[in-house]
């Protein structure tokens, strides 16, 4: 597949990294900064083109006339939209994906239609990050929460501690502990390395455990891994930027929300937009201010400013002053690894959150979702089985009969509202959502092929 990525920022480069690793893709990246592109081309097997991403001649040079997908990820919403417009009008590019930050554009009706601004898929990193944090707040104790099959099934990562009832026992014991729920342990990370979970595997204190379960069973599962925490009540958000305000708006009805903003002018503007949340003017790393606002009683402290270093420091400070759980927005993966082992509970990487949903749209066939587990050691994929037993290589077949690539397991099947944990003799039916785990991302095109319906099936 020929893919054109516009903008070599954080998300752009990591999209280029992920996509170029798959052999069937040919990736071209366009950016205005030659030095960034040179550095990128040293690391990745891609072509780079220097120029303004929305100019037709630049797109022409980047091979837009035979590109299958254009992914516009520059800093400017307007550039992204015009680039999609140009690609549609001049080059008839079939799929156009754009990052649109401004909620004003996203909420406009009838804007993104083929005869206005032809963007097929709009990605708003702020919205995605905000939803992601909401999920984490909804499940206290979770490190990562991923939705599958429109939220009917969730994949949750949590750090096991000795108060969880399964900790210190074999995975097999799970069935006796909670007999009436369906769920499965999908991956375990111990000391930064991944373990293949088997029936005999013993879960240790401090392991990062990923399990998949129906939405209503997530809390029960969580109690197996660690002591259940009380629902979150008090939230402090540092940074009144787009993400901070969005999150405050989403949480202010159900929680006590305080938001700290350094700029008085900005603080005034957001205070007008928020109804119940309290807007504080000040520095998030100001010890006096935090103590004044009873930081030691806060359930969750989220540092969401633009400066990742400031986020790390203010989150560490809040933790030391007694906040129960602290989260920080961190872009660099190396920083995330650095802080998560110690002082900060959860590092949120906007690019990783964005990339998951971005890549799902780039996928061929019926692969609906691809999420990277933390540190990218494994992928969780949701694929939809279509067709009948003649046209599809999966429908009507038992799981054990499928020719899956090595290191790939089918974990769960979602059939309508029913969540079925996969066994070797489970038969896949048409329109099932199949959730798989794979350790080697490069084999993802095999999964795509497996789930592709034979062309003769109409």
């Amino acid at each position, binding site marked *: 597949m*020929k893919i054109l990525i516009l903008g070599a920022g954080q998300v752009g480069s990591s999209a280029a990294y992920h996509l*170029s690793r798959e*052999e069937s893709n*040919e*990736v*071209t990246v366009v950016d205005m900064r*030659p030095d960034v592109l*040179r550095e990128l*081309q*040293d*690391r*990745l*097997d*891609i*072509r*780079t083109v220097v120029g303004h991403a929305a100019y037709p001649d630049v797109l022409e040079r980047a*091979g837009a006339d035979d590109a299958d997908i254009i992914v516009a990820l520059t800093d400017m919403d307007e550039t992204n939209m015009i680039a999609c417009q140009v690609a549609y009008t001049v080059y008839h590019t079939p799929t156009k994906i754009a990052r649109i930050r401004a909620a004003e554009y996203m909420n406009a009706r009838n804007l993104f239609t083929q005869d206005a601004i032809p963007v097929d898929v709009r990605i708003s990193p702020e919205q995605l990050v905000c939803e992601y944090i909401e999920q984490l707040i909804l499940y206290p104790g979770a490190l990562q929460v991923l939705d599958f099959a429109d939220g009917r099934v969730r994949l949750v990562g949590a750090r096991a501690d000795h108060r969880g009832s399964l900790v210190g026992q074999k995975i097999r014991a799970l069935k006796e502990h909670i007999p009436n729920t369906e769920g499965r342990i999908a991956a375990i990370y111990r000391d930064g390395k991944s373990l293949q979970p088997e029936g005999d595997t013993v879960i240790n204190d401090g392991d990062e455990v990923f399990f998949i379960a129906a939405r209503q069973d997530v809390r029960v599962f969580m109690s197996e891994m660690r002591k259940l925490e009380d629902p979150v009540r008090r939230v402090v958000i540092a940074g009144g930027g787009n993400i901070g305000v969005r999150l405050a708006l989403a949480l202010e009805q159900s929680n006590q929300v305080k938001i700290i903003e350094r700029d008085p002018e900005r603080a005034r503007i957001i205070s007008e937009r928020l109804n119940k949340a309290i807007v504080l003017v000040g520095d998030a790393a100001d010890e006096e201010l935090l103590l004044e606002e009873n930081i030691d009683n806060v359930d969750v402290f989220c540092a969401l400013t633009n400066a990742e270093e400031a986020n790390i420091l203010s989150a560490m400070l809040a933790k030391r002053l007694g906040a129960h759980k602290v989260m920080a927005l961190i872009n660099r993966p190396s920083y995330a690894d650095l802080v998560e082992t110690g002082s900060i509970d959860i590092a949120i990487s906007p690019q990783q959150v964005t990339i998951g949903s971005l890549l799902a749209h780039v996928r061929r066939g019926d692969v609906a979702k691809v999420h990277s587990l933390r540190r990218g050691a494994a992928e969780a994929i949701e694929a939809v089985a279509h067709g009948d037993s003649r046209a599809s290589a999966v429908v009507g077949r038992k799981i054990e009969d499928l020719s899956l690539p090595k290191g790939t397991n089918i974990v769960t099947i979602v059939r309508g509202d029913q969540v079925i944990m996969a066994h070797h003799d489970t038969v896949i039916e048409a329109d099932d959502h199949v959730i798989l785990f794979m350790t080697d991302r490069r084999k993802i095109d095999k999964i795509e092929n497996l789930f592709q319906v034979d062309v003769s099936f109409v």
Partner: protein
Amino acid sequence: MNWTVAQRILGLLLMMFSLTMAPPVLISLIFSDGAWLPFIESFGMILVAGIAFWLPVRNKRKDLRLRDGFLVVASFWTVLGTAGALPLYLGEIPAMSFTDAVFESMSGLTTTGATVLTGLDTLPESILYYRQQLQWLGGMGIIVLAVAVLPMLGVGGMQLYRAETPGPVKDTKLTPRITETAKALWYVYLAFTVMCMTGYLLAGMSLFDAICHAFSTVAIGGFSTHDLSIGYFGSTAIDLVAIVFMLLAGVNFSLHFFAWRNVSISHYRLDPEFRAYIFILLMVSAVVVVSLTVLGTYADWDANIINGLFQTVSIATTTGFTTANYAAWPGALPVLLIFASFVGGCAGSTGGGIKVIRWLLIAKQGAREIVRLVHPSAEIPVKLGSGAVPARVVDAVWGFFSVYIVVFGVMLLAMMSTGLDQITAFSAVAASLNNLGPGLGEVAAGFMTVSDTAKWIAIIGMLLGRLEIFTLLVLITPTFWRH
């Protein structure tokens, strides 16, 4: 430094190279010249060496870093000189010493075309074919071929490609994937070879000669199956075919690629390097042809034209075919031609020399200094076509140029210290460093009579010229080995 990965790729490359012994065996069987044994032996030895490299580290799959790319390319080309010499050294005919065999194989692979053999016309066909094949493999670059056929190189392919391909700017890819770029280059190269072969056939060569000469023409090599080179055929038609394909092979292959993909030739006209290349060739040809005619070197006017044109294109593109003994031409003509070989082909072509684009940039800088003297406060970028050339590239060109001159000077002194006279030494260094082939004076026909020491100096020169000095030079700097 990533020794194991470099070692693994080196092993793979050697195994791949061992396969190139198969076609000469086939030729030997077809002509039943009885010279197949050394090829089989070499095949075995190279294959075993490759496996010995590869086997212990076959599971080390890390990405190749920039430095590793230099290491792999430089060491592979060095090893290749010896490995390629094996069939020549092992065979009873032509009974070559080790030095001669390495010289011949390196001269082939680097597309230099200087030879130490005489009596080519009596050698077994398989040996003759093998020499031409070495040139063909070296022309577009055997590592570029490896990048095209070995998909497991991944990003490392780019590092290797950059270390082997000539020219000052190597970041532009024809296609997003380096494998596809390498394939595209080889397809164009292959297409030219077939076209050139057809041309020679139509002009009256035998099939064997047509294939052999097509190989060395598109590779800008200069090896021939006859002592008299192209002059052996004495055919104007063959001369013209050779001129056309030497010209084409000296052009940047990415231009050919675009011509092939977009089915248009208008972009040739717009390319500044191509224009400069044609301009230089036209000017030198004009001077040569007019001088020959005025001085009456040949009796017929058409002999003056065709020989003048042929020798100019052959020497200036660094091919090294001969139809006439140009070393005996009057006045400044022989030295003018040797000077033309310093310009050489375009970047990304199979030609040697300093490359047209570097001269173009240097000339433009000279012009800029003149304008600056008149307008001291003017802002004058060095432009190529429509865009300004990054200062880094301009710096790199100067760096390359000065190193080239220094290397040339050192090698000239070394050559003279082996007892060669100044003209011979000068032209011998130019012939090897520019990957030209024939020189002047004692080395006008070949390097048969010079001492072994001088041959080794020439071998180093050829390798330096083919890898554009820096790829080899970085390996002997402390910075490269410092962690």
